[in-house]
């Protein structure tokens, strides 16, 4: 059975005055249905560019030079913009790092979730509202009515990130792309959002491709980790393999730099 997402020989370049800068080179990997895959790399390594390329949302200065991005067997790069619009939000959704930037500050959050449903489903406003309410309940707002009428500024960072997750999940996508979804949250909220992601994945059979520079966040949810360095994939494996027996010097450096705590079976560096 082919994977849900199959990326093959992907190369993406940004055009600059000094010539092309390669943000991704020879990327080949796949994500199976219902699988959580982590994409580990430092800022600037090309993680976000890759996620945007999958959605067909690269900025004008960037272009896919070669390769293919197959989703459910069909190459997204060959599909017309109108068809991509139907895929985005309905079949593949994305959440970004900063939920405060992702939400419109002057509109109630419930309407912003319902809007996603309205864009993809031909149904009455009342049913869009019901779908939005049930998705808000799914991401942990119980009852969802109160948060529906709240403005983003009335919510905490963790609550805002859950609203953004509700937007992403409202149309039941098969694949969720997450770009540093917990980087702007503090540690207990981070654990809460990661726990929610894991339970949604299990409950909805959602596949997740999550980019992060945080080993801890990836170790908590990913079944498989891809390590990206300077636009290429340098290593892949389970969290135990990648963090415990890293092969590439870059991965080794990352793992070494992670503060582990004695009690939890890790080692405390000297």
């Amino acid at each position, binding site marked *: 059975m082919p994977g849900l997402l199959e990326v093959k020989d992907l190369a993406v370049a940004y055009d600059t005055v000094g010539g092309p800068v390669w943000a991704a080179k020879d990327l080949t990997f796949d994500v199976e249905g219902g699988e959580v895959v982590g994409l580990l790399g430092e*800022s600037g390594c090309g993680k976000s560019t890759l996620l945007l390329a999958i959605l067909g949302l690269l900025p004008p200065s960037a272009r896919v030079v070669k390769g293919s991005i197959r989703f459910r067997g069909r190459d997204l790069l060959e599909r017309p913009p109108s068809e991509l619009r139907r895929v985005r939000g309905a079949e593949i959704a994305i959440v970004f790092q900063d939920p405060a930037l992702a939400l419109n500050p002057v509109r109630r959050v419930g309407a912003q979730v319902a809007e996603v449903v309205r864009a993809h489903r031909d149904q009455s406003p009342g049913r869009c509202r019901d779908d939005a309410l049930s998705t808000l309940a799914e991401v942990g707002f119980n009852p969802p009515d109160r948060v529906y009428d709240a403005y983003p500024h009335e919510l905490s960072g963790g609550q805002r990130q859950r609203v953004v997750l509700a937007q992403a999940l409202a149309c039941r996508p098969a694949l969720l792309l997450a770009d540093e979804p917990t980087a702007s949250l503090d540690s*207990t909220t981070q654990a809460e959002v990661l726990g929610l992601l894991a339970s949604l994945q299990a409950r909805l059979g959602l596949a997740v491709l999550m980019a992060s520079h945080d080993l*801890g966040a990836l170790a908590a949810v990913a079944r498989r980790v891809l390590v990206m360095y300077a636009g290429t994939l340098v290593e892949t494996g389970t969290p135990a393999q990648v963090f*415990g027996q890293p092969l590439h010097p870059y991965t080794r450096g990352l793992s070494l730099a992670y503060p*582990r*705590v004695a009690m*939890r079976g890790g080692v*405390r560096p000297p």
Partner: protein
Amino acid sequence: MNDEPLVRIRGLSKRYARRAAGRSAAVDALAGVDLTIDRGTVVALVGQSGSGKSTLARCLAGQEEPTHGEIRFDGADVASLRGAALRAFREQVQLLFQDSAAALSPRLTATEIVSEPLEIRGLGAPAQRRGYAMELMETVGLPSAVADRRPLDLSGGQRQRLAIARALAVKPRLLILDEAFAGLDAPIQAQVAALLHELRLREGLTYLCISHDLARMSVFADEVAIMFEGRIVERAAAAQLFSAPQHPHTRALVAAVPAVPPLAS
């Protein structure tokens, strides 16, 4: 050797007036904090956003006036300091922030940023100040090639080093690190932590580190104080905090630390 702790805070509270939905309501950001920091030690203040960590830091740095309570620095009541003594106190306590890109002027070059505190105080001739700034930049591991660059042309790690060099320019005794590692990639965090550790030993500095990252702090700090709703609810050596957390909130913070497989040697 002076046995008096460098910092002794007693019964510190800070109340902010706030208008909510037309009614006025008060928020107690600090609700009676007691904290001592011994000379040459690293104490971490760990808690969630909104627990009062940054308010405590600002009160300690003299940027906010506490509603009640007392802060003694090197034995002296900070509230009673005036004139030269107050200026000296402000030099001795320096703050380092999370977002070095926002904290440093984008219009000044690296050397100007480091020598500005001296210029403000009228210390040294311009050429001397530049020389001293270059020395400080070398101390924090910045190559001389960055001397005339501006903050936005530097990497995040280089900018944080630059902010450290600027803080050190006036020879402080206490550095308050307010989420100074957040936003940096793990290897860069580790490098900045190693630099701060080395500086502390060499210059006899004392650190108060503010963070929500219990894992990073447990490696960096001698002791960790857990802050919750404006109070310090627990204080212990880092290892002890993990093996036997006492307060429910400490247990929640410990439970939130992700388990990362150990690195095989």
